[in-house]
């Protein structure tokens, strides 16, 4: 598989504030995102997750300044040298709070905004808007005002606006963090649907969602990737995750608690189905 995103030994520090020296927020991050992968990026507050996200479309360091070392290649393009506008057509970033991105009075205008700025023909814009709204299940919402939508609907509009730029790579930075349970489910459904045609970096604190969606998990701590691998393996390390300030999936925590109390690794289940079976067998044994 080819790498769509290649980050090599990336170091980054925001411009120093008066009285405070420059501090490295990213400290030697290397990663690859391969075509079609969904990668979960976990990390406590301040670990550098959002900074890393912004480095993928060149906003870091192009808009933020500061010091940078190492390389970020997006489909082979050097993110320090290419304009952010060009990179944004390849890497779409969706943030936690969709409202700060909204500029237009209708859903349709919001989604058309990006393609219009590319100077695309009207028919092409129209086609992209229809497709993007369909992809997030908001085809009926074209003439609604973004301000009057629910949290989950707003976030889906934000995703549609990014999709209309037709990026192959999607970076979702805590897309469900400020949503209620219904909104979270809606957005996770959309991510699931986008999966076949996109490479997705899902940044979140919600390990349950990552456990269900991701092919691979990265854990960032103080600007360094400290864990990496198959979700099953990473989420098995319950104590280490807790030390890193992360909440492991509950079913995993239960297996860990049982094993700890029993003093033997008796259980290794990762979802409700497996747990029902394993515990049922143990209880009648």
């Amino acid at each position, binding site marked *: 598989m080819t790498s769509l995103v290649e980050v090599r030994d990336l170091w980054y520090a925001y411009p120093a*504030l008066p009285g405070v020296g420059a501090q490295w927020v990213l400290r030697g991050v290397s990663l690859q995102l391969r075509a079609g992968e969904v990668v979960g990026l976990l*990390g*406590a*507050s*301040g670990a550098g997750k959002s900074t890393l996200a912004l480095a993928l479309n060149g906003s870091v360091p192009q808009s933020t300044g500061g010091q940078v070392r190492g390389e970020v290649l997006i489909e082979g393009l050097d993110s320090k040298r290419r304009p952010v506008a060009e990179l944004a057509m390849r890497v779409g970033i969706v943030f*936690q709070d969709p409202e700060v991105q909204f500029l237009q009075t209708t859903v349709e205008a919001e989604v058309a905004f990006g393609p219009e700025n590319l100077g695309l023909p009207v028919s092409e814009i129209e086609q992209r808007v229809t497709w993007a709204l369909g992809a997030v299940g908001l085809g009926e919402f074209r003439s609604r005002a973004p301000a009057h939508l*629910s*949290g989950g609907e707003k976030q889906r509009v934000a995703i549609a606006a990014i999709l209309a730029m037709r990026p192959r790579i999607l970076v979702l930075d805590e897309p469900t*963090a*400020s*949503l*209620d*349970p*219904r*909104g979270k*489910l809606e957005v996770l459904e959309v991510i699931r649907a986008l999966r076949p045609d996109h490479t997705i970096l899902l940044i979140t*604190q919600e390990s*349950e969602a990552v456990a269900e969606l991701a092919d691979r998990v990265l854990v960032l701590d103080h600007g360094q990737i400290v864990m990496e691998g198959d979700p099953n393996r990473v989420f098995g390390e319950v104590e280490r995750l*807790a030390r*890193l*300030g*992360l*909440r492991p*999936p*509950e*079913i995993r*925590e*239960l297996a860990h*608690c*049982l094993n700890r*109390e*029993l003093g033997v690794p008796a259980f290794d289940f990762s979802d*409700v189905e497996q*747990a*029902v079976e394993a*515990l*049922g067998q*143990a*209880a*009648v*044994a």
Partner: protein
Amino acid sequence: MILAPRLEAIDLWFAYEAERPALRGADLVVEPGEFLALVGQNGSGKSTLAKHLNGLLRPVGGRVRLNGEDISGVATGQLARQVGYVFQNPDHQLFSPSVEQELGLGPRYFGLPAAEVEERVQRGLERFGLRSIAQRGPGTLSFGLRRIVSIAAVATLQPPVFILDEPTTGLDWGSASHLMDHFAELHAQGHSVILITHDMRLVARYASRVVVLSEGRVVGRGSPQEVFRHRELLQAARLQPPRIVELVERLVISGMEIEGLTVEAACRSFLTRYRLKHG
């Protein structure tokens, strides 16, 4: 021990926009020293209802009583001594040039003696791990830290009742559980805590009672156990119980004797049985 007041909201009506009432006859009782979770979808009226309990909002219909007395004539500043409100957005309550001053703002406003203010500020800095950033401006901090400062600033007022409006949003689990453990401690000292949250794992772990809101009305109430079992209620309010509750239910259906709403409780409950089988 702190003796918290009894709070009562009776048939509350309120509207931000005339044609769409946010509260449509909401009733709520908070018993002294209770740890209550208020849950429901965005827009169900949770924050609106809670803001009536300390006069931040005044109802267009219905009453709020504190220890049996109607609060409609009591100034909001006065009520704040009894009921502290931690806002969902920390930036709605941070004004001072430094974290240290922010923590002293409320106690000073209440006219406490300087030595007492100082002691509370120092204790707050210690307790919430803010010592190293005491001189920083709140505006220069990360969202997570601003949130902790806003909580510490309310905690220095030591109100008998705390209302926490989605206090853990934007915090990682390490900070969130640290914070909630702090309020569990205050609860153990007699403070009432009203927790507004979407996080059912927090509800299972900390709350003794749950009130479910939908479209401006209370549609269900009970222990976390009772609410998590109430399928129609969960569906109506679009709530999803924690995975561990789902697992325990499945095991019970399969004939096992197991209980617990949290990992720790389910783990203990299972081991009791497991060891019996093997013992």
